[in-house]
């Protein structure tokens, strides 16, 4: 079933309307809690839908895009949930506070306001008299709440990353679409896939090794877009070689073709290892393996792969030779509620670190463990409190989960929007991935097919790794949920990825229509893997 673009447009308008309802809920709930969420910030967030809709109209009208807009709609559902969740978190002055003291002050001020409101509305005159010596309800002394009033200038809001990053992303989507729908660009990319890989690696590695502090440069991760570039190179080389790779002996391809592919595949490993960003590596190699198996598809390879993972299972389970942080993540995954023995080697450094943070006060092993595991534990407690419908926007306490705006956004959604909120996110994701795979299926040539499958894999795997980390389906990783998490460069990257998918989908549909009309495809050769030949001639 294909949905008409006009229906898509109506769905998008409905999404904007729903987001308005969500914002209203947050503002009212915030006022009940003693703070007024910044309305300018909310207006900015709503206004961000305007360029997004404009991009849609531009695609439809100016570009006469024939792509499957389910991609766009699913993306926009995720973006809506994300925008509302972000606004919920950052409009709370406690969550927005930078320093721990500020957080404590705002929390206490919030609580005082709730108490005062309750006293005013629910206490009888006897109690009022006992508290304030007056029964004049309208002129009660007010608690100090100056700390709750955070003001922003228009400039601050307009130039915050919450404004320009989504805008940049939408621009990136449009640009990616414009370029990637063109044959010559695709051809150029496939031809120079090796060059792209190496050319990406050099500055990336330099940046990682010399500029990064704690995995970030200037508080952001500017290498998020390299995912696309590495994918270009891997897909290019694979599209070029898959016929050779399919010729196997004992189920193994010839080393002459396999080794260069492995070399290309290993390119991102070094910098990501240096960043110790294992979640990202997991996604990378998941996608690479997926592409490899899809193109080469030899049953013995599957068997070898399964055997390999069986061998690696105990390595992960017992944590042989893994960094402590990874061991911790795996332990958290399996035994969240059971503190490790105080003497366990990998646990000691963490326990010592926590001990230090308490300034000499002796912390029991159990307390130290709950300190260490608090992020995941608090996230699960929140999800459990959410039940089916959630506690309501602005009425839960996602602020007790550290970094709940990015890695743990799913926990905030689970707490305030409940199981249904989770189903919305997973459902939209499902639609996005299904349509992405459909796009890959419809692709005529190997390169765009792999590109579409790879991008879909990136989006889907990243989301599953993020969500799975929160609900203990998978170990915790510091990875973002596409379109939902607060993430500067990762948001831009996700937008660009959808732009590429839209371009490929548009190409497929155009070809199909041309075929249907009986005319020869405009570029017959391209349809018959001419790209491959082009690369072979390098």
């Amino acid at each position, binding site marked *: *079933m294909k*949905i008409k673009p006009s229906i898509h447009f109506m*769905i998008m308008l409905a999404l904007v*309307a*729903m987001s308005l*309802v*969500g914002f209203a*809920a947050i503002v*009212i709930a915030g006022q*009940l*809690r003693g703070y007024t969420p910044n309305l300018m910030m909310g207006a900015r967030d709503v206004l961000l839908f305007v360029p997004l809709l404009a991009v849609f109209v531009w695609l439809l009208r100016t570009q006469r895009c024939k792509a499957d807009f*389910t991609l766009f*709609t699913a993306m926009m559902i995720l973006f809506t949930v994300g925008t509302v969740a972000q606004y919920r978190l950052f409009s709370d002055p406690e969550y927005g506070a930078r320093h721990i003291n500020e957080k404590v002050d705002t929390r206490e001020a919030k609580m*005082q306001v*709730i108490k*005062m409101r*309750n*006293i005013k509305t629910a206490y009888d005159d006897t*109690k009022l*008299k*006992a508290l*304030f010596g007056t029964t004049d309800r309208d002129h009660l*002394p007010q*608690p100090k709440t100056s700390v709750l009033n955070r003001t922003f200038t228009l400039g601050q809001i307009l130039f915050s990353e919450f404004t320009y990053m989504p805008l940049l992303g939408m621009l990136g989507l449009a640009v990616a679409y414009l370029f990637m729908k063109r044959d010559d660009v695709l051809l150029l990319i496939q031809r120079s896939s090796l060059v792209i890989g190496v050319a990406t690696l050099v500055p990336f590695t330099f940046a990682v090794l010399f500029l990064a502090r704690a995995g970030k440069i200037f508080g952001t991760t500017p290498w998020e877009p390299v995912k696309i570039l590495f994918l270009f190179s891997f897909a290019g080389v694979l599209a070029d070689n898959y016929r050779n790779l399919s010729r196997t002996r004992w189920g193994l391809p010839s080393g002459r073709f396999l080794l260069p592919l492995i070399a290309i595949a290993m390119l991102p490993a070094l910098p990501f290892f240096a960043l110790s960003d294992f979640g990202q590596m997991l996604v990378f190699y998941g996608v690479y393996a997926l592409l490899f*198996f*899809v193109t080469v598809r030899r049953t013995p390879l599957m068997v070898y792969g399964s055997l390999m993972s069986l061998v690696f299972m105990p390595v992960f389970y017992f944590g042989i030779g893994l960094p402590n942080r990874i061991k911790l993540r795996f332990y958290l995954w399996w035994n969240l*509620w059971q503190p490790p023995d105080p003497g366990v080697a990998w646990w000691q450094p963490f326990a010592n670190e926590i001990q230090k943070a308490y300034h000499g006060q002796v912390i029991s092993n159990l307390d130290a463990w*709950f300190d260490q595991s*608090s992020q995941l534990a608090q996230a699960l*407690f*929140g*999800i*459990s*409190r*959410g*039940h089916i419908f*959630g506690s*309501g926007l602005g009425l839960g*306490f996602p602020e007790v989960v550290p970094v709940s705006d990015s890695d743990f956004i799913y926990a905030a959604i*689970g707490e305030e*929007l409940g*199981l*249904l909120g*989770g*189903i919305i996110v*997973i*459902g939209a994701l499902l639609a996005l991935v*299904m*349509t992405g*795979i*459909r796009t890959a*299926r419809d*692709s*005529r040539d190997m390169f765009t*097919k792999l590109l579409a499958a790879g991008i879909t894999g990136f989006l*889907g795997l990243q989301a599953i790794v993020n969500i*799975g980390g929160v*609900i203990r389906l998978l170990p915790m990783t510091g990875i973002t949920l596409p379109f939902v998490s607060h993430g500067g460069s990762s948001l831009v990257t996700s937008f660009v990825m959808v732009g590429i998918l839209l371009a490929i989908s548009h190409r497929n549909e155009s070809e*199909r229509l041309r075929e249907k009309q009986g005319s020869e495809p405009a570029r017959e050769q391209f349809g018959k*893997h001419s790209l491959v030949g082009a690369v072979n001639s390098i």
Partner: protein
Amino acid sequence: MILPYILSLIFILGLLLITLVPVYATLARRRPSTTKDNVPAGDIGPAATNKWLNVIRFIFGAICIVAVGFHGYWSLFAAGPVSSNDKYVSLMNGRDRRNLRLDEGGLRGWVYDRSNNPDSALARYRFNGSTIDRVYPLGPAAAHLTSNPTGRGGIEQAFNAILTQPVSAYNELVSTLPVGKDIQTSIVADLQRDVAQQFQGKKAGAAVVVDVTTGEVLAMTSWPTFDPSVKLDNETKDKQLYEHDHFPEISPTVNRALEFYYRPGSTFKTFIAAVAVAEGKTNLVFECKHEGFTPPGSGRAINDYEGEVHGHIGFEDAFKVSCNQYFAQLGLALGKSTIAQHAQALGLSIDPDNAAVRGDPNIWSVDPAIQKDFNSVFAPPQSQMNLTSKVTPYDIALQSFGQGYDSITVLEMAILAAAVARPDGNIPYLKFTTGGETKIRGTFLPAPAAAHLRQMMRLVVTNGTAAGAFNGCPVNVAGKTGTADRDVRVFDPKTRQPVKRQDEKGREYTVTTGQVDGWFIGFAPYENPKIAFAVVVEAGGQGAKSAAPIAKEIVIRASQLGLFANAPATQPANKPQTKNGKKAPGGTVR
């Protein structure tokens, strides 16, 4: 609360409907792929990959379902509407940081005393110019009743369910954290404060005052005490908790009226006397000799306090002068099984191994909704004797005058006093709140027997061991003194650790010393009992000199507060100076 919640619901349901459209569209789309799926055999071109892409599509769909399943487990089954995992729920109760938010932001109900007046509340809010804070106006005087250093314990924990129960449906709807319900306790704040003051300067002690007619607790004091409104740092808190568990003898947080076993000494003769009266064995005469009484089968003799000799003595005189030898012989004459039967009727355990150690739930009458929490705080360990088949006549003889295996709580002694004081001789369930009917746990004594015992207790005050101690009381008091020996660990006052020494063989042992606790249990007014009480002063020496003065103060104060409003005052009231405006005893913990 309700408005944003409804808006959220609209948001969720709206988005869910919207999401269903693309999901349905992608799943229901049956149009074959543009590239033909009927791939010729042996082809490995792009079209051949589609089969595998379909497999991946299927796998991803399965993963999504599993993810929803995991989420569903945490939200519905772990601690949710469908089922709940006890271990997880207890973790959530203890470790969820949201609990703190709910505590801090919600207004708990106020805890009033008997008068229901905010000025004498036990727990209330106070505005200090900038913030609204929970305070405990009685401070150290009622610390064990209100809250403990962890911010829980006492009434705050016992009545948590009521104190946090929304006061009205409207308030629940419009507020994010609702206002809790108030409770009216049966405590008389002025009496509570004054009784606590009596222990100032004493080593340790406890007192319980109950209303004879209704079983309501009017005051419950434990000394030493602490200031519940002082916020402790974690280290001190941990130290106090450790002391509470390991060194209860010196811990200020232990409620000595409830969770501390004492030897009741001679006050326990009231119980044995009650058994004798009930069994009609009031005409026995035994000899009280200089060399003491040696129970059959034992080489040790039982002597009286400071070697007193009473000669041939009858039941009533022996009770009046508190003759140990008489009661040792009376106990043996009554027999183990008879004593055991009455002990069980009173609620004592007769087998220490089978006592309800973690809290005797059969003492209180409470709202079933809060029973669990309430019992965890206010149900004392079951008082016990040892009347199993293993005990020797010597042990029985000792237990007959409150020594040996007798391990009794102060609360239990107050219950004993109340049961004797009641005209019907029944044991009432105690209550912590006012109102509601008085429930009777069982019959302890037939009415005439109770009257007889009351008369004997009055004689103790007029002519017996407590003679003169209640001079100047506005009403007539009846009671029984007690002086109990026990060995206690010696603590180093500086380190607050037990002192340890090594014997000749180098083995370490804990140093103990003998301590004499003073007791008084009784009731007033004698003619028409209104209140019953039990007082213990640790290391106070003779009960008549240490505990009885406190009991006297209780009676005087109760009289001033009008608790004997309907009782005839037979003695001219020698009104002591008023104690109004007195502050609670000092804020020091030790």
